[in-house]
């Protein structure tokens, strides 16, 4: 254990920041054990420093029902009853908690024949669809650090969203085959505006809003030696000279990488945009080694994709109404189930859809019983029927998270929290929901031990 105790100050070495998908695991935290506060986070970026510094023990009840403090047991009972009674319960969020908690959430959804979806559906969900359609030439960030000499950031602004992406993985670090760091790499930025990532880039390409697909398709054509229409600049805002120069550079690099952001997935075209970029990466492998990776936002959104995939076979938007998993984005994804008014109860873990979902979805959240698990008060916890305050992953709890390149990392907590973990609450809800479902079908008694080793029966 790399922890040393000195009076009431504890130093935690090799701790992990879970604020963004970079999941930097080289933090050195100074913890004031009396104040339950992290006073210094060495190696963290501006976002990481805020993440650690602002996580104090909240002065809130651990559990509330309709705004009134209750015991955790009472809240678990109410949550389980609410979910079991519902005809179309949804589970959502999950990108800011551990894989262990995510597992429990999927199990609950399975038991109650609900629908599980994660914040992926409103982030790189379209890229998930594109992976299924075109495949993914992939890598780890360690490979990028050691090998990549040509980096293209497309539709993302890591300088503000993933500040250490450049220094840890992709631009400045010195690697095995990139001994001179930045000098050995060419960095390209494609975006609709000049973001704060631009100063890092050697080449900045400004594409017209909504024309990423056209630009990618033109690049594919040029890579394959086909002719591109003369008016491509009028369409995309990018000159033919810039395009041909980019194509030559891509074909002649040693190891090229696309890092793509939500400028592709959140705009018109969605999975077609991501798919075009993935297809371009595949095409380039005729000439050199080229890979593509979505740059993921939340600390464990990649874990959510992995856990939901290995438990159900699909990455997000999974429905268990028939007793087995079915995947259908647009039908079982949360913006749709809420804004169409399908959902009649919601279990929301570590996410705040009442703040950032479309208006119609937020309006529906106000009409149904909502159960929230969150470390802080949010717009969603404020409207919740049952609200749990939980410990913060990576700061107060251990567990596993996946970095954006699908590498699992074990967390090293800094100090204890008086609040339970997401995993503990979800495990308790799962057990109680299982008992209630068995009772409902006549296979067990409500309030029984919950030890029967039988699968939850199908709902009529």
């Amino acid at each position, binding site marked *: 254990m790399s922890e040393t105790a000195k009076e009431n100050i504890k130093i935690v070495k090799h701790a992990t920041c879970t604020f963004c998908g970079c999941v930097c695991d080289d933090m050195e935290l100074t913890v004031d054990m009396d104040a339950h506060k992290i006073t210094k986070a060495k190696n963290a970026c501006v976002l990481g420093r805020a993440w650690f510094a602002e*996580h104090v023990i909240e002065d809130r009840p651990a559990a509330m029902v309709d705004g009134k403090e209750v015991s955790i047991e009472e809240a678990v009972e109410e949550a389980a009853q609410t979910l079991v009674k519902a005809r179309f319960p949804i589970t959502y969020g999950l990108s800011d908690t551990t894989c262990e908690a995510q597992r429990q959430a999927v199990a609950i959804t399975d038991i109650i024949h609900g629908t599980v979806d994660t914040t992926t559906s409103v982030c790189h969900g*379209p890229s998930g669809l594109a992976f299924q359609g075109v495949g993914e030439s992939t890598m780890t960030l360690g490979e990028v650090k050691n090998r990549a000499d040509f980096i293209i950031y497309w539709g993302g602004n890591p300088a503000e969203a993933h500040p250490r992406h450049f220094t840890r993985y992709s631009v400045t670090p010195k690697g095995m085959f990139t001994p001179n760091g930045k000098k050995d790499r060419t960095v390209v930025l494609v975006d609709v505006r000049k973001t704060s990532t631009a100063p890092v880039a050697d080449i900045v390409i400004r594409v017209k809003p909504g024309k990423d697909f056209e630009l990618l398709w033109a690049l594919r054509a040029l890579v394959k030696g086909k002719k591109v229409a003369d008016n491509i600049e009028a369409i995309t805002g990018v000159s033919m000279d810039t395009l041909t120069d980019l194509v030559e550079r891509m074909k002649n690099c040693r190891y090229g990488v696309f890092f793509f952001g939500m400028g592709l997935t959140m705009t018109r075209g969605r999975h077609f945009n991501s798919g075009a970029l993935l297809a371009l990466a595949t095409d380039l492998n005729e000439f050199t080694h080229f890979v593509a990776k979505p740059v993921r936002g939340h600390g464990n959104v990649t874990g959510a994709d992995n856990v939901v995939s290995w438990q159900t076979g699909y990455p997000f938007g999974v429905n268990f109404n028939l007793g087995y998993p079915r995947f259908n984005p647009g039908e079982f994804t949360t913006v749709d189930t809420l804004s169409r008014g399908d959902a009649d109860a919601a279990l929301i873990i570590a996410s705040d859809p009442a703040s950032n979902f479309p*208006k119609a*979805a937020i309006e529906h959240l106000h009409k149904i019983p909502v159960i929230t698990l969150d470390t802080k008060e949010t717009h969603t916890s404020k409207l919740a029927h049952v609200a749990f305050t939980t410990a913060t992953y990576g700061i107060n709890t251990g567990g596993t998270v996946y970095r954006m390149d699908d590498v699992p990392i074990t967390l090293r907590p800094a100090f204890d929290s008086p609040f339970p973990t997401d995993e503990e609450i979800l495990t308790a809800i799962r057990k109680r929901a299982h008992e209630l479902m068995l009772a409902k079908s006549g296979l067990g008694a409500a309030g029984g031990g919950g030890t029967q080793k039988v699968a939850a029966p199908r709902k009529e």
Partner: protein
Amino acid sequence: MTEIMILVPGRSSKQGTSLNKGKLKDEYLDVTSRVEMNMDDMQRLGLENGDKIRLSNDTGETVVTCSGKKATDLPSGMLFMAYGPPSSQLMDSDTAGSGMPLSKHFSVAIEKVT
């Protein structure tokens, strides 16, 4: 004065740091209710830093504070703001069968609030 522009909501580091303090705290609410506009557009429309403008479309409307950006950084006709409750007011819930609502690049009418 009403004009249609393209709104690009996105992440910003200030939004990232303030959300750690709490999404219901003043700092987050302030960061997410500011919109950046090309300075030339602002001049043309008679707007100054700190002026309140109403953004609206078929889905809804919100009032935000505008601040200028150099024309070389933000093209004319484009607005940038950090994601948050105000930008949600303008987001259509139709996902075209994908699960993803159009969350960037949507048209909004802008109008000075006096």
